[in-house]
């Protein structure tokens, strides 16, 4: 004999007095996008993937209906939090941020934009033992230092990390390198590449399953786009 299960679409009036609402399957996706240069490239990719997205009217709106999706703009390091907690269904964020934060989210597409590397940087020619490293990425830095057997201290800074090296605050820094021109101008050099990074399309764990009808085709199209 089989167990009886209620049929899809039935409304439950619960003993606690709440009425169960039916899922709104036509609802738009909410996407968390990082402010700045990556924003433009991300929007362009999403449009090429077939999404009809307008730009925000005055550039100051933090949250707006862009047509095929609701867009929310934020600092890149906040994207994983919004996506993990499901306030955004999906988003775009650099692998560097994901490695630093180890969020519990899916990252199904490497979008191949915002490419950079995370490197250990020192003043040109210096080679004494590193005792202190400054970085915006303290977790990645600690992992790397442990991996090479270094017991240097790590201090977290929020911006212009190179300054730590120039002022003697730290012997080395771990930071993002794109072209290397900032390094050259400040007589700094990349000593080791820790990891490569690029922007990823990230998805909330529940949303991927409950809004699969919208997210799955989008993921597939994005993967096709970046392949070519």
């Amino acid at each position, binding site marked *: 004999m089989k167990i009886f299960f209620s049929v*899809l679409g039935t409304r439950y009036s619960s003993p606690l007095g*709440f*009425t169960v609402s039916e899922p709104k399957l036509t609802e738009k996706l909410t996407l968390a996008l990082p402010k700045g240069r990556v924003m433009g490239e991300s929007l362009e990719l999403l449009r090429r993937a077939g999404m009809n997205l307008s730009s925000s009217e005055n550039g100051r709106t933090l949250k707006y209906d862009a047509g095929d999706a609701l867009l929310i703009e934020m600092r890149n390091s906040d994207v994983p939090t919004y996506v*993990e907690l499901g306030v955004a269904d999906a988003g775009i964020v650099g692998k560097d941020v994901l490695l630093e934060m180890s969020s519990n*989210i899916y990252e199904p597409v490497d979008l191949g934009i915002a490419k950079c590397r995370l490197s250990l940087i020192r003043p040109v020619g210096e080679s004494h033992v590193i005792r202190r490293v400054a970085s915006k990425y303290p977790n990645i830095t600690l992992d790397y230092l442990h991996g090479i057997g270094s017991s240097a201290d790590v201090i977290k800074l929020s911006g212009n990390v190179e300054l730590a090296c120039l002022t003697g605050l730290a012997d080395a820094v771990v930071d993002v390198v794109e072209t290397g021109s900032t390094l050259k101008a400040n007589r700094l050099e990349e000593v080791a590449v820790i990891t490569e990074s690029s922007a990823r399309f990230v998805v909330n764990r529940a949303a991927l399953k409950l809004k699969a009808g919208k997210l799955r085709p989008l993921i597939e199209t994005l993967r096709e786009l970046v392949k070519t």
Partner: protein
Amino acid sequence: MTTRITPPDGTRFTLPEEAISKTEVIAKLRQLYHTWGYKLVDVPALEKYDPNHPRAHQSFKFADQDGSVLALRSDFTPALSQLIRANYPDDVPLRLQYCGDVWQGTKPDFNATREFTQIGLELVGVSNARADAELIHLARESLRTVGLNPRVELGNPSFVKTLFDLAEIEETEREKIADAIDRKDQRTLQSLLEPLNLAKDLHHALLNVSDLYGDIHILKEAHSLAPWPETTRELKRLDEIISEFEDSSELLLDLGMARRLSYYTGVTFRAYTFDFGQPLIGGGRYDGALLPFAAGFSLGLERLMRALPKTQSATSTLVLSLEDAPARLLRKAGYSVERTLMTDLDEARLYAQQKGIAFLLTERGLEPLVRNHPLYTELLLALGEGHA
């Protein structure tokens, strides 16, 4: 000035509004499990520290008076398995339910309070699809009981594990690959698999297993991606569970679930609800991990409370009483009656109004302080006055 002492990180106070609805939710869930024959048990919050405990690294530890190490309960299942071995060694099937606090020393952040209430079930001594389906059904019913619209997602970590075995992947490599599969991170997966020079079909299967999610039709895709007898056996276990359901259209599958590969030995499942981004229930079958045959699930009360629609629960007292005898009648009928500590009637009335108390009970009888209160007639009846 007094110093304000706050509770330790990851713990917090529960105020009446929340405490009331939390108790209601617990009562509903316990009742549901009771109607399915699950017996309530309790286990100590203090445990002897065991380095082999599945959450040993996360538990709070301290020294007992004799110097041995104690740990705070960080999970119910290990303690329950001790209870079962000691008291019901041959009593199968055994259905138990539990509810209580656990303490886990994870880093306190938005996701990890270090003290929280868990409620859950264990179905012990039987390992078959009927038992698994019962638990999955009860996971759905748990969310329905509290007014949420559930979707349960099934996985089978042994499917990924079997692929690892077939591809003869070294133990040291497995954790990284499983993590990339679980995150559906194909780029990392590619870079991890490439240097292994696997047979083409196994490489293809491992690279694409994380895309095997969706409704139950995904099983067919899984069969064609992994046609080996060993993987077919793992898919068949899911198929058998699904065929226990009269209506399987709401069931979701994800064969890329690859967490705790050495703990779970059969189906694992998670329950979600719409518009809430995190799983509310997690469970699965862990034959051999702590008991020969066992499966169960647990639900974190605090997270569940966050997923519930915000309702205004009545926390204020209903009646402020200046008279003890009629108050006794109302209390007997189950109404909440506060005994005034003031002697002045006007003062008492003012106090009641400030506290949102709806009625005043004086020697002249019941005086409503708000108009058209729905309970007015009921209260009069309880006082033996209402025939209006």
